[in-house]
């Protein structure tokens, strides 16, 4: 394409963009709403994923020994767990160490435990980090069957709950975003149809004198591109500023940390731009399909 034609296509596209004021605003706003919601959901999902991996890394099971178990029994179980492929890490906590840990936790109030060294009520235990959270149930079962074990604390069921919530957010979000994207594409298609209608005489003359389909279509493709792009700018700015603010305000004070803005916002912005441009160009192609006879 010559530089001359390139400039001409952009000029025509911009004219089409400004002339259908109301439709342009409607179509760009639909893109804006779509991008805002999609961006919000993507940030949310990125953070729940982050949370899940963080919690997964933290799950620790504790198996408490019965009072009076022998050291052989303890080391036998420890050996068995170390060679188990489901286990990441095993640490033995003796009765004395357990008491020491409790003292540290109590800090200033540790005098409550004074004199307990001789009649230590705390059991010895094994702290076990499973490789995968999914292994927790199986390990727990196996430990409970061991005669030396009094009680197993399996670290709770936080992860499956988070996963369930994330999956719901993903499912509902995906459906919502797809519906919004289709609405946007539909509005863009209609805007393009209106522009084509307003230009039908020009298009007729172009065909008559031998303009190619590509030449006739370029301005409308550019117009769709511009509609997508313009719709995307405002919500992308809002998401960037909003996320930076949220990360600064709450990022480190929550029980978990948020994905850092530097890691999230770059890729998020690119993904949102690409999607809105795809919606714009896709809508434009749909709009041309029936109105511009090939």
């Amino acid at each position, binding site marked *: 394409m010559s530089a001359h034609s390139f400039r001409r296509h952009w000029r025509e596209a911009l004219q089409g963009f400004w002339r259908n004021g109301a439709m342009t605003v409607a179509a760009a706003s639909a893109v804006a709403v779509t991008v805002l919601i999609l961006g919000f959901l993507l940030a949310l999902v990125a953070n729940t994923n982050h949370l899940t991996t963080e919690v997964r890394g933290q799950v620790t099971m504790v198996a408490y020994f019965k009072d009076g178990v022998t050291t052989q029994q303890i080391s036998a179980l420890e050996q068995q767990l170390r060679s188990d492929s489901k286990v990441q890490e095993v640490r033995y906590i003796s009765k004395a160490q357990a008491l020491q840990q409790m003292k540290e936790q109590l800090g200033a109030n540790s005098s409550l435990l004074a004199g307990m060294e001789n009649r230590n009520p705390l059991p010895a235990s094994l702290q076990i980090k499973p490789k995968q959270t999914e292994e927790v149930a199986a390990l727990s079962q196996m430990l409970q069957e061991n005669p030396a074990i009094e009680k197993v604390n399996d670290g709770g069921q936080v992860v499956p709950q988070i996963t369930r919530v994330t999956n719901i957010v993903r499912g509902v979000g995906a459906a919502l975003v797809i519906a919004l994207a289709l609405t946007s594409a539909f509005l863009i298609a209609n805007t393009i149809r209106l522009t084509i209608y307003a230009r039908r*005489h020009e298009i007729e003359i172009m*065909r008559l*004198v*031998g303009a*190619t389909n590509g030449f006739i279509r370029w301005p409308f493709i550019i117009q769709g591109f511009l509609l997508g792009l313009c719709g995307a700018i405002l919500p992308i700015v809002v998401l960037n500023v909003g996320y930076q603010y949220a990360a600064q305000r709450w990022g480190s004070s929550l029980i978990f940390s948020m994905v850092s803005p530097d890691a999230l916002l770059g890729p998020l912005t690119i993904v949102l731009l690409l999607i809105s441009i795809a919606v714009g160009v896709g809508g434009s192609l749909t709009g041309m399909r029936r109105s511009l006879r090939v």
Partner: protein
Amino acid sequence: MIEFADVTVRYQTGVKALKDISLRINLGEFVYVVGPSGAGKTTLIKLIYLEERPSSGRVFVNNVDVSQVPSRRIPYLRRNIGVVFQDFRLLPRLTAFENVRFAMEAVEAPPKLIHRRVMEALDQVGLAHRADAFPEQLSGGEQQRVALARAIVNRPKILVADEPTGNLDPETSWEIVKLLETISVDGTTVVMATHDREIVNARKKRVIELDGGRIVRDQQRGMYAGVSALLP
């Protein structure tokens, strides 16, 4: 060169607009296509500028069998054909100059050529001095001359005109017809559909007469109605 071989055009409604038409029009020839309304004149013109395709038979335009040609090549073939209509079809928001330039820009002509060629074409139809006028500021005859300039600015080998004088008074019609003849003298093939008796009878050019989709007469230096019809 234009050649029709056993051409039939049947519209989707079932109407046969042309029936077994065969004809040949040579380079630089000037031909009137006449006949009553509904005879098939417009359909014949549309076949030449590739707006319609034959239902059967073959149409050759500039030695290309256009009945077979794939759609994506049609734009390029159209660049060798200029078209003029009864209703001018100028773009109202563009000046005379811009209307003519539009045809060159649409085929991505080299920008350097455009200004000179547009002025030449306007000069050829005698409207160089009205280049900046908008269509509504021009008379019907002047508008048709701008349309003519637009049709020839890309220097087509063939010029077709579908009742180009249909909206014009007799005097203005003469001017348009004379311009078309000048263009054909320069080597362009001109095909003009009309039912203006006076013009056809006065100019003594080849006349192809259609009726009900068939050629009923094809005569060099012809009259609008056959000689027999003129006898008492």
